[in-house]
């Protein structure tokens, strides 16, 4: 079973995505704050971390930076998927630096987005 951490501060979105992912058979932890997410990443090993960029306390990139303590750069690029409603070229460029996938909200195609979340490349 794929173990997913979903970092998203918009509650409705958090609930729905959790539900959709669970329907597809994943186990999903949810987290609203960046700091809480960092705690969870330290405590637990996830196969996939879906991270919103604009969180209330810190940014999604800060979470990724902190995760470097636990994961290698290669692991970060395969584990993390960034979701953002603010897809500026700068954001895309930064995501590319980490080698992470980035999806803009709203998703063009929900099913496709779920596929992306659930596909783990070795």
């Amino acid at each position, binding site marked *: 079973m794929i173990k997913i951490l979903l970092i998203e501060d*918009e509650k*409705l979105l958090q609930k*729905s995505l959790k539900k959709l992912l669970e329907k597809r058979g994943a186990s999903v932890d949810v987290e609203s704050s960046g700091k809480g997410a960092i705690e969870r990443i330290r405590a637990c090993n996830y196969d996939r971390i879906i991270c919103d960029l604009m969180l209330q306390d810190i940014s999604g990139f800060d979470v990724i930076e902190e995760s470097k303590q636990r994961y290698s750069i290669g692991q970060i690029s395969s584990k993390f998927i960034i979701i953002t*409603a603010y897809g500026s070229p700068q954001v895309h460029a930064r995501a590319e630096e980490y080698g992470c996938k980035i999806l803009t909200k*709203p*998703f063009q195609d929900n099913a496709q987005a779920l596929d992306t979340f659930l596909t783990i490349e070795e």
Partner: protein
Amino acid sequence: MEDKGGTRAEKAQNTRLIHLDGQLEDWVLETINAEGLELTEKSELASQSYKISNGRLFFDSNSSSPNLFSSGIPFNRNNLKNILRFNLRRGDINLSPEGKIKDLKLNLTNQQRRLVKTIFKKHLSPKGLDEVIKTGDEIREIDDFYSHFDSIHSLPRSIIEMDLFRGFESCQVIVHQKGKMFCDTYYYVSGMGDQHKVIPVESFNSTFSLIKKSKSKKFNQSKLLKEDIGILGTFMANVFSIKNHDIVFIVSQNGFLPPTKDEITLFDSFCNRIGSVFDFLLQRNEVSEKSQNINVLLMNYPHPVAILTSKDQILFRNRLFDEEVFYEFLDTPDRFQTWKLIKDHLLVSRIPDSTKNISDIYHYQRVSLLGELLNTLQHELSNPLFGLKLTAELLEMEHEDEEVKETLSEIASNGQRCLGIIKNFSYLYQDENFTDNVEIIRLVKETVILTKSESRQIQKEIIHDGLPEDFTIQTNPTWLSQILFNLIVNSSQAIKTVTENFRGHQIVINISKTERDLNISVSDSGPGIPDSSQEEVFNPFYTTKDKGTGLGLSICNNLCLKLGGRLNYSKSPLGGACFTLSIPLEKVTHDQNPTH
């Protein structure tokens, strides 16, 4: 001769003296009449002297002062006309007994109006300016000795032509303004005319110190074999240091005999006097350069400027200060700014229309604020909307009750619509220099939707014959959309001015392409633009709307130029206005972009 009573300036203001050849009499009268003036009385002084007057004396002819108009110009049939005109236009005339054009505006005779018109039509008067500036600087009275010399350029000639220097062939004056890398040398040889050269300061310095050290002040070329000294054989020389200038002064007979004792005495005594002439001429030269600079500055000043006397006579005006501006000043002096000059002259300039710049800035501030706002909204709204939509979809799937399902589906699709609007908005407000492969037809459609609040009920049609739906060009979508937005809103508002029933009215947007350009025309069935205003439509502040700023089309035009294209107006076959935007299919390079 100077009139000893009163200062020169006072005299110059009150009277003008002309000396007429009997043969010219008729012709002068003709000119004076043509200028709308009268020659009222003959002077008692001489039969060939006249006072020319218009209610009050302003031209007086007096045989002793033939050159008060301008120094040294002999009168003849050809230049008299110009001289007369010069004085007329310079404002030496008083147009009414009180001397106020202000009062005159109401009761100008046709003749006088014509005169004012002539003054404005034909003449700009930089010389009037010279007068003001010159009298503003203290220039000492010219005594007999000074009157021999009128400029530093012709000084060598004037010296050689003096009786004192009979037998001398050449004269050279080299002037170095302290601090400059070059010197001016003014040089005259009988029969060869005035010459002026610029020489480097090094050459000047060695000559200067050599002459300074010499006691006899006698030289010959073997000592000063320099190209820059254009003198042959022996010569006498002296140096002067005055305020900001060092000067070398040389005279020569261009012979090989050394100068006699008498000649040296003559030269020495001449040198005692000529020093102050240098000072005077150089000072005058500076004043004239200064006045030239001020003249150029004022002439090119981007707002109307004039110098008026206390009696509202024009001494100087630049091109923008035309008749209309002048009357505007007389009517509404509040709109003008004035500075007092010497002799109660006034420098007058219309206060630049600051509202223009302010609203331009205001506009751009608004646009950039809007951009920022949209970026924030994009995140702050689209995230929760997405949540709403996703949750509604999810719940819809889980629920059995048809009515609830329908409601949830409604919520989801409304969320989707809102997301779409936000996305389109933010696409339209990208950064300044953002260009993208823009799907033109989609952009036009989106822009039309954005104009909905203004164009509601008016039928709109988008025609793109021969262009595929997904046709793209590389351009700035924000600007393009803003241009179209403005044009469509303009068309809608124009239609609304003529009718409250919009049925039958329409706006047609035609998209087509030529070999090089993409053309998008927005035409409407509104009232159109009156023929008389067609040239003004792109000017800022031109508006036909009650509440318009008149900036819309001007901004459109600017944005068009930024896109490397152009905006043209024509009459629409629908009866109203048609604006056609042409932008190049190939993206313009930075160089061609007029804004950079």
